[in-house]
Every structure is written in structure tokens, then in C-alpha cells.
């Protein structure tokens, strides 16, 4: 299968590969996919007190399109407010990267990873508030 230029660009120069401290209060982690299905994405966000995503990192086990989708997602996340980040849709990723139909699931996985990271962050914040409040 031929890859779009944008997939190749992200694949060759992936943005934001790395790891944030998953135990930190201001970090949300999403781990989605399954090794048996051939793709696993871990996406992490670090959120400021103002609710802005200051940093985003990923690691992905998956094909070139999966790696490109996660790289693009981290790029888009940085600088966005959490509520803005929640509006990122898989179709936007698929369109930006020109993914063919058989690779749409890679962009779906990236959206799942974003949602899962945000949910993890919100859960931590709620737990923190509960602790402070109590």
C-alpha cells in the first residue's frame, strides 16, 4: 500500500515521542488498543492549572498510519484547552493524513486515546478535589 506524504512525514519525524509521569496529578494517560489486534497507543497529556494542555507525548505499537495518527494527535493537543481537545474527531485526523479506508481504524484509535487520556486526567482532578474537600 502506498502511503500519503503526510503519513510518511509523521512516521519519519514523529513529534512528541516519549513518556510523562503517569502518577502525576496533572498528567492524564490513555492506553488503547490491543497487541493481538496489532496496535496499541499510549497518549499522555500534561495540563496546566488554567486547563491548557502544556505537553503531550505518545508511544505507539502499530503500523505507519497508527504512528502518524498519534503523532498528529499530540501536535494538535498541545496548546489546546481540555474542552477544545475533546472536540478532536477521528475524521479530522483521517482527513489531514489522507488515510485510506483500511486505515481509518488508526484514526479511531487516536481519538479513543485522546478521550481516554482526558478522562484519566479528569478522574485524577476529581479525586484530588474530593481529597481536598474531605
Amino acid at each position, binding site marked *: *500500500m502506498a*502511503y500519503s506524504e503526510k503519513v*510518511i512525514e509523521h*512516521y519519519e519525524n*514523529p513529534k512528541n*515521542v516519549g*513518556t510523562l509521569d503517569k502518577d502525576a496529578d496533572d498528567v492524564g494517560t490513555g*492506553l*488503547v*488498543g*490491543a*497487541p*493481538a*489486534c*496489532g*496496535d*496499541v*497507543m*499510549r497518549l499522555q497529556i500534561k495540563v496546566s492549572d488554567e486547563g491548557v494542555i502544556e505537553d503531550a507525548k505518545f*508511544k*505507539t*505499537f*502499530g*503500523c*505507519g*498510519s*497508527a*504512528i502518524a495518527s498519534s503523532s498528529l494527535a499530540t501536535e494538535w493537543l498541545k496548546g489546546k484547552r481540555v474542552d477544545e481537545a475533546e472536540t478532536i474527531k477521528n475524521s479530522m485526523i483521517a482527513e489531514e493524513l489522507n488515510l485510506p479506508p*483500511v486505515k481509518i*481504524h488508526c484514526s*479511531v*484509535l487516536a481519538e*479513543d486515546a485522546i478521550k481516554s487520556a482526558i478522562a484519566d486526567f479528569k478522574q485524577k482532578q476529581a479525586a484530588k478535589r474530593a481529597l481536598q474537600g474531605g
Partner: protein
Amino acid sequence: MAPTLPIYMDYHATTPLDRRVLDAMLPYFCETFGNAASRSHVFGWRAEEAVEVARERVARLIGADSSKEIAFTSGATESDNLAIKGVAEFYKDKGDHIITSAIEHKAVLDSCKRLEKQGFKVTYLGVDKQGMVSPDDVARAITDKTILVSIMLANNEVGTVQPIAEIGAVTRKRGVLLHCDAVQGVGKVPFDVAKMHVDLASISAHKMYGPKGVGALYVRRSKPRVRLVAQMDGGGHERGMRSGTLNVPGIVGFGRAAELATSEGEAEAMRLTTLRERLAKKLFQIEAVTLNGHPTARLPGNLNVAFSYVEGEAMMMAIRDVAVSSGSACTSASLEPSYVLRAMGVDEEFAHSSIRFGLGRFTTEEEVDYVGQLVTDKVHALREMSPLWEMAQAGIDLKSIEWAAH
């Protein structure tokens, strides 16, 4: 010295034409262009003569008693279809049961599937972890309704070479016909239809440095005499088994390729085994690398390995200047990982991480060394990007995690 890029290491998919084969073919396009079925003039006779020389050469390569046992086809897909459907149709009053294995080529499997729809019963034998069919399993599966057993000589993905002689001993003793898809193994590992009691065999020119679109079906003529029903109607060429004007230049090329395989195959197999082992030695220095297939009973040019925690298609993209193939889901439209690896009981995550290296006649030591180093570097780079590798390094058992299947 750096080799020229891109590098071809996908010799199971197809092979380049050997120059000597091309030279043999060239006169048969513009000069000796006759129809081999034209019995009334010299153009036809010359074409027919050339076809008969090729037939002899193909017969010799596989140990057939007579060149009359070779029918030329458009390739092994057609040969497999003709063998299985043709035998089933001819012997349907004798029995309705066929035995094959789960790791056969789709040309065999899907021919069997079609017969099932027509009411035949098919047993798909499993294989062991190394991709081997057990002759005992074949013996146990045979019933008084069994008419045909179809087992390949060597598997196209993992390279495992099947015990055809042992299986042939079983089928001969039980009076059942044996078809062998010998495409990947012929000319590379020992194959002899007489010694191995094979009754039908499929071969393909383009897997042995001949042209694409030409193949043959060996059909035994005595002890036992095998009969089949043609699957294409027409002029009754090839003793009525396969109608259609013969592809004379293609067949001439096939014959030359067979001749080269007969004379050079053994030496080439030794050279390829050495090269393959050289590549394996380099790759097995990497941590968490496993071999798919059999350690010794395998095609000389085949190396199929799983690089754990690295996805196969990402690997192929990382080594884009090297043509290989992968057991990963992503390379197929179906998104299913390789059915061959699955039948062998290879974990799906290993299947997704598997790469097949196919070495052949024109592979050089420089290429092997270049690929060995490139793959080593890329495995390390992709593992740096892999959450699974990070978790494994941290001592997390990946099997203990509840992954959400999607």
C-alpha cells in the same frame, strides 16, 4: 561496499527472470511464433518441438517417468484448481472426502471450499508449532470415502518443508491420490514424484526464475493412472486436460528455468542456506526475536522472524528500500493476521510482528549484511517508540493487562 537500492528480498512472491531464460525465450516471439497445435506446417512443428523439449525438462526436474505426464497451465493457481476440482469431479462416485492442511495456499484452500459447497467433505489438518503436517494425522483422517490428499511441499510464508515422502507412503498404501503444491520447494529442496509417490503436482515458472503466467500440472499416467475432468472447455489441448493455445515462449522459458534448476539447484540451495544463516545470526543478536517455522526442515532462502514489540508494517515502512513481506494484519485488506501463523498456534502479537525475508538466486552477501544492520537499527528505533517495549522493560507482564479488543 553499500549495495544498490532497492534490495529485493521477497523471492517467495516472485523471482526475476534469469537472463539465460530470457535468451531462450526471445526467438519464440517474432521468429518461431507458430501455434504448437498447427499440425500442417513448419511454423507449427517448430513451436511444438520447442514445447516438447520444455516438457521433457520440466518432467526431469520433478522425476516424472514421462513428459506426457506434464500439462502446461497458466500458473500454479490454475494447476491447483485443475488438480483438486478435476480429480473430485472424476472420482465423485468413488468418494466425497478430501484431506488438506490449514496452511495451504489459497488456490488449494479455496478450491476445497468450493467443493464443500458442492457437497464434498474436506478435512483441514492442523500443523504443529513449526508448521509441520504429521503423516500420522493424514493416515488417521483417511476414510473409505477419501479420494484425494493435497499437501504442499513447502510453505510460502514460513518455509516449512513437509514430509511428502512419508505422506506419499501413507496415501499409496491406502489407495488414495496425493496432490502436492510443489511451487515453493521445487528446485530448492528434494522433490521426486516417483520416489515420493506423488500422483499430481503443481509448479509455477515465475517462482523459479521463469516467466509469469506459466505453470504445469504433473498427472501420473501409471500405477496408478490418474484421471481428471478438464475445467475449461475448448480445443482439447494438453491431452484434453487443459484447452487453450499454448504460451510457447513462456513454456520455452519455463523449460530453460527447469533445466537450470536441475543442474544448479543443489549448489544454489547450499549458497542460500549459508546466506540465510548469516542473516539469522545477525538478527538473533537482537533481544526478543523468535523464529517462525522449522529450524532445519525449511526452504533454503526463507527466514521468517518475529521482532517482539514492533509491528510488522511499521517495520516494513522503516526499511522501505528493502522488499520483504509481513505476517501483520495491516498488509492485507482483511486486517486478519496470517492464517498460516495462526494455524501454527503463533500468538497474534507475534504474527503482527513477523517479517518474512526471502532470499534467492541474485541475493548477495553485501545485501544480507546491509539488511541485517538496517533491520537491527530500526528494531531498536521502533522499540523506543513502542509502549509495549517500555512496559516489558519495566517488568510488566503484557498478558496480565486487560486489553480492549477493537
